[in-house]
């Protein structure tokens, strides 16, 4: 699959940033090394970036810049979880997770009082799916159990979650990105959630 690329020069013009800024962000790990794609051109080598990812990342950095140090931003854009713990009330009051989902979660994890980042991540995904009406409560349990069991095995690698249904029976799986996955014709994919993107959004919400 040919990725949509943007050259360094086009990028700087488009976003109105300078070489200095770009290199500073790279040094601070705001832009991952593997987004710098070298290609040969008539002037020797030219650097290209995956267009969509890069434009998103840069507008994010520029929007966040005020009041945050580059180190803080680096922490937010990295796929690694942050160290947080919230109580049920905090999560509800800040509108991160709905009460319905929290109660549902507590039915399965009785007595839990504080939620760490991984808990919140799973909750957030289930919350979204329940709210959108894509899944029912039983299917929520399935996703909850699957994610809690499988997700730690990825050890922070970017991955995605598939929820699919065939002949009325729901199933779900997780897959490393970039990867390829194919299903037979009868399978209907109900939801496909990019975990890395969800983590980024979530970090912004709870920061």
């Amino acid at each position, binding site marked *: 699959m040919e990725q949509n690329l943007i050259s360094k*020069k086009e990028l700087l013009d488009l976003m109105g940033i*300078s*070489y*200095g*800024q*770009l*290199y*500073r962000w*790279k*040094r601070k790990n705001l832009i991952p090394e593997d987004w710098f794609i070298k290609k040969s051109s008539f*002037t*020797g*080598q030219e650097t290209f970036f995956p267009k969509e990812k890069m434009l998103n990342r840069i507008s994010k950095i520029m929007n966040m810049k005020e009041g945050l140090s580059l180190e803080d931003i680096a922490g937010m854009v990295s796929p690694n979880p942050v160290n947080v713990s919230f109580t049920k009330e905090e999560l509800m009051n800040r509108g991160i997770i709905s009460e319905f989902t929290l109660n549902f979660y507590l039915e399965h994890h009785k007595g839990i009082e504080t939620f760490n980042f991984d808990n919140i991540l799973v909750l957030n995904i289930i919350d979204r799916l329940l709210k959108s009406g894509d899944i029912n409560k039983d299917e929520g349990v399935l996703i909850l159990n699957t994610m809690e069991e499988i997700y730690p095995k990825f050890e922070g690698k970017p991955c995605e979650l598939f929820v699919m249904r065939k002949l009325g029976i729901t199933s779900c799986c997780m897959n490393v990105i970039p990867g390829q996955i194919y299903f037979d014709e009868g399978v209907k994919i109900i939801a496909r959630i990019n975990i890395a993107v969800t983590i980024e959004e979530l970090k912004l919400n709870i920061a």
Partner: protein
Amino acid sequence: METQTKKDLKINGDGSASGGVYEGIKINGSGRITGDVDCEYFKCNGDAKVIGSLTAQSAKINGSASITGSLKADEFKVMGFTKVSENVESKDTKVSGQAELEKNISSDSITVNGELKIKNDCNAEVFTVNGAFTIGGMLNAGEVEIKLYGPCRAKEIGCEKIEVRKGNAFKIHNIITSIFPSFDSKTSLITDSIEGDEIYLENTRAKIVRGNNVEIGPGCDIELVEYKTTYKKSDGAAVKEEKKV
């Protein structure tokens, strides 16, 4: 018996020890440490070999040292010769002799008054050189200040500000080259590309120079200059093509 306090390790003469956690390590003579080492300070006045990684608040090498693993230190000072086989992470790096790094280095500040060789990339906020360096990959720094006293090489340079000037040690040589400006490859910076906001170059050979404010000084040989705001070129410089973008 196990105690909570960390011990010092001193090798005077010839000796070897195993790695571990120490308060301080001092090697006067020849020492060999097998295993990863974690200590407050590491000082070598002689010849040291660490077969493993070194983590220290301060690592000072006054003789010769080789580390087969990685190095992590707040302060990394080389007054003699040091070779590190894996990545180096430091806050303050000073090389007053020679350092050979087989992977990458990332340090807030790097000062070279001798020679620094890096196989891959070099990341620094401030990169100051009075001497020579070879960087096999990219030099990415906030501020680059180079006084050329020897061959300086980098595959590519990306920075906010770069200033490259000829070292002023050889006065007569300077007079000769000011009369006959020719490219002097012994004390020069050679790189494929330089990209930055503020650029001033002397005695530099590059395929591409891109920046906002670019000044090409005497002794330069540049194939293509792309500038955004201002551009100046001195008489003793050769620029094949210049473009305002």
